């Protein structure tokens, strides 16, 4: 059996070992390497308890035996191999199960509160402990997406988009637990499926089934805006809905040939949208023109952008999570596809604090945590959901995902 000269290192000071080369059997796998590190740590520190490690060789996670991996990656076996090791992520257990009466269409968490939109026409605010704080009721149809806008002390602004073609801007006082609808954003001619707040927290963008993207102001004001109503719209409907002041879009971006499924801000001037017409488009928020088009081969369900690694992740109606470089000019270039799901990928989300990790949810009831350095297999699967996963989000460093819970 051949031996390899290896040197182990880690960023975590707690688990560091001596910087000397070791001779390791070439056929050893993750478990054996993990045992080696544990032995070394035990020798150094008697009170060390067994810990599972994962190993990276030249920035790629080790998933097969060491020799196979090095052969596949084309690494010379003559030199000393530098192996980085990190603590293994184990599949977390669900901490809280927030029971909705109906399917949850969207979730967005900030540092204190979790906002969920549901198919029972309401949105809800939860504390991080899983306590229902507030029910946001006002829509006449299914709530499709929710978003936090800003928090000034105890009052926060939040958005809910619905199948009834409107977006409501709410003001919520967390101390008095008072909720007030400030604005009703009208203008879409189809269900509003996605909304995203920009980085300055003064604007937001919405994407709808009517193929349009609209940019709105997210600042709550008191004066009524001039509404250009199409004459065919019935007058009486407006009067019955006392849902705040009506607001019209600042700008409409049209160009997609099919429904817009997901929208996000890359920075304050750039909007990225994914659509059922198999494209991801990058828009200039100032001029409203398309800058770049990334063409895929399947309908896109959801996209997510990480400012840390500047990559775009997309979930589509096949089984793959794909990573794109939004700055590449030649368009249709997939950097990486992560394949392990067996159903449509309905949601993807990059980790807010880790540049390699993203989480994906799929119709096969699984949520997977991925590391871009290991594109064959995910770090772990979360199989706590009993039905389709529709949306996922992170809180701080932990992942939080919501799913459809059919009438518990």
């Amino acid at each position, binding site marked *: 059996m051949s031996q390899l000269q290896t040197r182990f290192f880690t960023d975590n000071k707690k688990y560091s070992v001596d910087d000397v080369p070791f001779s390791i059997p070439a056929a050893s796998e993750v478990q054996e390497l993990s045992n080696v590190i544990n032995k070394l740590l035990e020798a150094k520190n008697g009170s060390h308890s067994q810990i599972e490690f994962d190993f990276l060789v030249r920035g790629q996670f080790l998933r097969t035996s060491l020799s196979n991996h090095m052969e596949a990656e084309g690494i010379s076996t003559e030199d000393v191999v530098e192996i980085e090791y990190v603590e293994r992520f184990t599949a977390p257990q669900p901490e809280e199960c927030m029971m909705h009466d109906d*399917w949850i269409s969207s979730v967005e968490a900030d540092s204190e509160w979790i906002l969920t939109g549901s*198919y029972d026409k309401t949105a809800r605010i939860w504390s991080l402990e899983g306590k229902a704080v507030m029910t946001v009721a006002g829509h006449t149809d*299914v709530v499709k997406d929710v978003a936090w806008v800003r928090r000034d002390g105890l009052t926060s602004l939040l958005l809910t988009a619905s199948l*009834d*073609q409107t977006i409501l801007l709410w003001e919520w006082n967390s101390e008095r637990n008072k909720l007030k609808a400030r604005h009703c954003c009208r203008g879409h*001619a*189809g*269900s509003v499926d996605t909304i995203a707040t920009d980085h300055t927290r003064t604007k937001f963008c919405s994407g709808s*089934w*009517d193929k349009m993207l609209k940019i709105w102001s997210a600042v709550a004001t008191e004066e009524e805006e001039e509404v250009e109503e*199409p004459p*065919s*719209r*019935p007058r009486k*409907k407006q009067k019955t809905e006392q849902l705040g002041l009506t607001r019209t879009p600042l700008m409409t971006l049209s160009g997609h040939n*099919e*429904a817009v499924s997901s929208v996000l801000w890359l920075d304050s001037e750039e909007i990225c949208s994914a659509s*059922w017409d198999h494209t991801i488009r990058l828009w200039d928020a100032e001029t409203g023109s398309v800058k770049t088009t990334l063409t895929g*081969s*399947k*309908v896109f*369900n959801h996209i997510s952008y990480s400012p840390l690694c500047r990559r775009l992740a997309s979930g589509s*109606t*096949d089984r793959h999570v794909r990573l794109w470089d939004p700055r590449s000019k030649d368009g249709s270039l997939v950097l990486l596809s992560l394949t392990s799901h067996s*159903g*449509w990928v309905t949601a993807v989300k990059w980790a807010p604090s880790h540049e390699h990790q993203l989480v994906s949810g799929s*119709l096969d009831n699984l949520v997977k945590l991925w590391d871009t350095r290991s594109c064959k297999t995910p770090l772990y699967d979360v199989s706590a959901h009993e039905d*389709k996963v*529709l949306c996922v989000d992170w809180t701080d460093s932990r992942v939080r995902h919501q799913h*459809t819970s059919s009438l518990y």
Partner: protein
Amino acid sequence: PLPPLPRPHPAKGIHKCRKMGQDIRNTVGNVPMEWYQDYPHIGYNLDGKKIFKPIRNKDELDEFLDKMENPDYWRTVHDKMTASDIRLTDEQVDLVHRLQKGQFGDVNFNEYEPSVDFFTNEVMIHPVTNRPQDKRSFIPSLIEKEKVSKLVHAIKMGWIKPRKPKETTPQYYDLWAKEDPNAILGRHKMHVPAPKMRLPGHEESYNPPPEYLLTEEERLVWEQQDAEDRKLPFLPQKHSCLRAVPAFSRFIHERFERCLDLYLCPRQRKMRVNVNPEDLIPKLPKPKDLQPFPTTMSLVYRGHTSLVRCISASPTGQWLVSGSDDFTVRFWEVNTGRCMKTLEVGGAVKSVAWNPNPAVCLVAVCFEHTVLLLNPSLGDRLVVSSTDQLITAYEPPEEDKEQAVTWALSEGLEHNKGHRLTLTHPKAVKQVVWHGKGDYLSSVMPDNSSNLQVLIHQVSKRRTQNPFRKNKGLVQCVSFHPLRPYFFVATQRYVRVYNLIKQELTKKLMTNCKWISSMAIHPGGDNLICGSYDCRLAWFDLDLSTKPYKMLRHHKKALRGVAYHRNYPLFASGADDGSVIVCHGMVYNDLLQNPLIVPVKVLKGHQITHDLGVLDVTFHPTQPWVFSSGADTTIRLFT
């Protein structure tokens, strides 16, 4: 074989016995004397006694001394037969010399004796006979004259012609005549010898082994069989001896049959063409190159409690409507599988159809005797309200005509549920179908006994027409042409195409099927597919022929639904075997190019319940996705 008899040695032996007075001739004959090397004796004399070898053989030294000292050594020879040395006498030496010179052995023989003539050469004066010469030897022959005159006469009469001069032109012949199998020489070359008759076996024997003899039952069976069915044309029989065998009674028959075989069965050499069977299969593109098409099951829409008979997708592709035997109509969100709405109707839903006009939000549902127009209130609010306005804006005409159906506007609770118009038919309705513009709709009431089978309704004017005066058979399904004012009516075996403006029959398509179940028109309008209960799918090119351009028999059981995709070159068929088969059906604008039909995928997923599998298929209007509804109460989306 016996060894040759010992023969007395010539001359020498006699001479010896005369000389020695004792006969020591060896009687072993002309055999190699090496055979006796290992024995003390060398053979046997005439009395059968052994002839012993001399006790001591001469060695080389003795031989040499003998050669030096004995003056007669040169005339001494060794007799192998008796192993003794013989000294030749003078006469014998002389004879040897004479023979060596090639002279006669006998000294007294003279080979040059003078010859004596036995016949004289002198002529004698007396003849042998005294007869005078004949007269005919002096006069010319009359017979010859007669013969000559006959020949002369024949020449004169032209009966005998002078010999033709020999042709001097060179003679050609066909060198390759044998190569042509049709020419006579070629046939000679291609001669196939008659097949040999089978040689007689044990059963033909006069005394066959007992296993070849038929038992009594076998013999009865043999006798009852027809002559052609018999394994043997005769009964094997056992005779005690060859003498008891009677004459073969079937001899003439057998010869005759053999002659018939040779005469009536033409023998010819088969020219086998070496063709790779793969080359005979038409070249079809690989399914991989024909993407996109649905490949996997993605979503299951669960909620119905009985078999789902019919589905229809909204023109935007956001919603799906399904009708079931559990008396409900359900509306689904396509991309999540969420049931948005459930409506109870008063019967098993036979057919649903979403209005294809995107500016109108109406769904036609038929159950029992009723066609119901629903406004599901899904999609754009503006469209929903304008649809309601469209329906309420109707003003009844002054003169009320008697119509085949009664139109009723729903109000109150039913209006809130979404019901808008109710069309009560006189008979059970099986199918509803919209015209592409969304104002006209047609309903089918299959009934073989009257001409009231198909009705065309106009929603905006609430008017109903019966377009047909005659009953042409049990109507299965109808469809509007997507672009031109044509109307397709499928009866059990034929599809008739009517021109609605000229009000005449344009075409009658022969499907070659036993019973049509479903029909779909290509969005271009020039092609049509028909599914039938006898497992076939027929593709018609309306410009080409009234017969099917292609018959596809991929399903194992009866087809229930067929559908075309609106944008992609795809069509699908669902059948009772629980599978949906998706085919690539490319129609070219070039009139000379025939449609390209390639089956690309078999989609399985539905369970077979009560011998029913897939009941309806429909495509998503914009994506290459296909929905199928099945008897297992589910609707499935394949992408």
